[in-house]
């Protein structure tokens, strides 16, 4: 290896390092933003009665939406589930609008017509979930069919929890996608509970990834609390799908660090699980790595967190000022031109 080569290799290495550091900062921003917005919702706004209805948060699972959605290309279409808030941020939906959505205000993506994560925006390439779990899975197949039909090189990102894989719609959607070799990345957050139901009462196989064989679909188990791991795996999966090789599933092992919803104290979860998984907090792990790799100093991190808090302060204030929907609009838009 001559000097020129060495130099260019060094440069490349430095550049890669730079990219990784940059990526890490992005990860941290989106994960922290999701954590902070959800904390405000669950621990403040909900208790203050400013957020009503069902509230489900993704505390401890932030690496999954963040690591995966940051792989998405602009043409890709996201179908997040109910613990994937960061997907919206990454797709350009502001914390302001998300908070207004939770608070039932006109600036929410559904203008008060639906609550919490039940929102979407086709201009941002995000399809809204409905409550019925896994209902978006066949819809993701249809989105992918359309992407191919339209000659786009896009991929559909279909998100769901472990429990959702028990549903018939999940099976039908995955089956159709695999038979049709559609460009879909299936992303399971296996947080080991579905509401109060532990995994072994949801499925007889040990891993969600074991379900892949039924569809001849490559399925990978990923450390869902390691955002880099999620990112790398999603890149592999998306490349596979984009290359026309059909769907690819990622099972991201993680843990739900809360009750099922804001009103559930999760007595049924053994305390040790919270302790054990608490040590694997994806944000803490990311920060540690950033410090170790010298991608950031403690001060940088503190500053980043402070900036996120400020952004969320502003967003909450915005949402709180956002008007209530006008009851006179109740009948509009059930059908077009009404």
């Amino acid at each position, binding site marked *: 290896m001559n000097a020129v080569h060495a130099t260019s290799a060094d440069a490349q290495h430095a550049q890669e390092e730079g990219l990784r550091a940059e990526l890490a900062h992005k990860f941290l921003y989106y994960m922290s933003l999701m954590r902070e917005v959800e904390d405000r919702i669950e621990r403040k706004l909900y208790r203050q009665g400013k957020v*009503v209805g069902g509230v489900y948060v993704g505390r401890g699972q932030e690496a999954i939406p963040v690591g995966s959605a940051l792989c998405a290309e602009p043409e890709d279409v996201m179908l997040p589930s109910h613990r994937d808030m960061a997907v919206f941020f990454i797709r350009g939906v502001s914390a302001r609008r998300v908070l207004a959505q939770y608070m039932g205000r006109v600036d929410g993506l559904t203008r008060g017509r*639906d609550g919490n994560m*039940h929102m979407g925006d086709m201009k941002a390439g995000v399809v809204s979930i409905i409550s*019925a779990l896994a209902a978006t899975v066949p819809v993701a197949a249809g989105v992918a069919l359309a992407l191919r039909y339209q000659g786009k090189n896009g991929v559909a990102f279909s998100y769901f929890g472990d429990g959702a894989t028990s549903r018939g719609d999940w099976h039908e959607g995955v089956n159709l996608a695999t038979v049709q070799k559609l460009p879909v990345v299936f992303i399971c957050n296996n947080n080991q509970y579905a509401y109060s*139901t532990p995994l072994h009462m949801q499925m007889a196989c040990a891993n969600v990834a074991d379900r892949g064989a039924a569809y001849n679909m490559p399925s990978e188990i990923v450390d869902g609390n390691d955002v880099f791991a999620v990112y790398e795996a999603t890149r592999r999966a998306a490349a596979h799908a984009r290359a026309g090789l059909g769907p690819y599933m990622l099972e991201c092992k993680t843990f739900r660090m809360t009750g099922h919803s804001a009103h559930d104290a999760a007595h049924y979860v053994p305390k040790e699980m919270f302790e054990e998984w608490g040590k694997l907090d994806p944000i803490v792990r990311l920060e540690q790595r950033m410090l170790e790799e010298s991608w950031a100093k403690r001060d940088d991190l503190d500053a980043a967190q402070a900036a996120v808090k400020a952004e969320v302060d502003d967003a909450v204030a915005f949402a709180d000022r956002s008007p209530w929907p006008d009851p006179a609009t*109740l009948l509009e838009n059930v059908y077009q031109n009404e």
Partner: protein
Amino acid sequence: MPSTTYLEAIREGLWEEMERDPNVFCIGEDIAEYGGAFKVTAGFLERFGTRRVVDTPISEAAIAGAAIGAGLMGLRPVAEMQFADFISCGFDQLVNFAAKCRYRWNAPVPIVVRAPSGGGIHGGPFHSQNPEMWFVRTPGLKVVCPATAYDAKGLIKAAIRDNDPVIFFEHKGLYRRIKDELPEEDYTVPIGKAKVVREGRDLSIVTYGAMVWTALEVADRLAAEEGASVEVVDLRTLMPLDRDTVCASARKTGKVLLVHEDTRTGGMAGELAATINEGAFEYLDGPILRVTAPDTPIPFSPPLEEAFLPNADKVLDKARWLYRY
């Protein structure tokens, strides 16, 4: 006896039936250790064990189908939908399997499907629906919608003892809002019988579920306002429909206001309007009117939900108009 909530009444009815008949068991999501999303089966696991309190994966079709299979074998399953809104996920099993077995091959399917329905809890489009008409229009199914704690207990017991499939709608808004003194002894409320919950001469309000309470309030207010004597009929069961009680009330008062929380088009009010036309046309002194939710999904945000739901003011307006007609 201390006062019992609507929710507690259902819980008691279910519990007593489990004690009475070893063939009765519960099946659904998060109903065992967790006791159900609304805690209707809290404590059941401890008393009856996993054999009779069966937690399932998230599989409404499998819950319905497994209940049917067990019912065909002579058991008496009580299946829980976590919310009535998810019943559409097990729909084919109910409308095509359960509903038609007896007629087709003489095989009774004695199951109960409990479905917490109704709005007013800011549940939004997927946690507030009133899907009763999907089942009312499906011959072979019975559909029950209790309004009081007394009826809720008596009807859940009757539903469990019934030899046909019963869809049992529990109004979430009544769960903890409504109470009754319940008898000590075992009792049932017959499926298929409406009840005149308030006698009147001038105008009938025919309704069911949470709107019974709205109708009673309107009856009071219209009496106070105009001295009107308003009769309130609580259908309690939508299928089989107690057409006689409805028509008798229509013949008596000559004016009928139909009220339901469900959306308008294709709602129960239509069936009642046709029934009254057929059975009491010559007695009518005014058009049969209806107050219902409008034809939209159920919005989440409180001001929208409030505008969506029928309430006493809206019912009173129409009742007054009809009374003066």
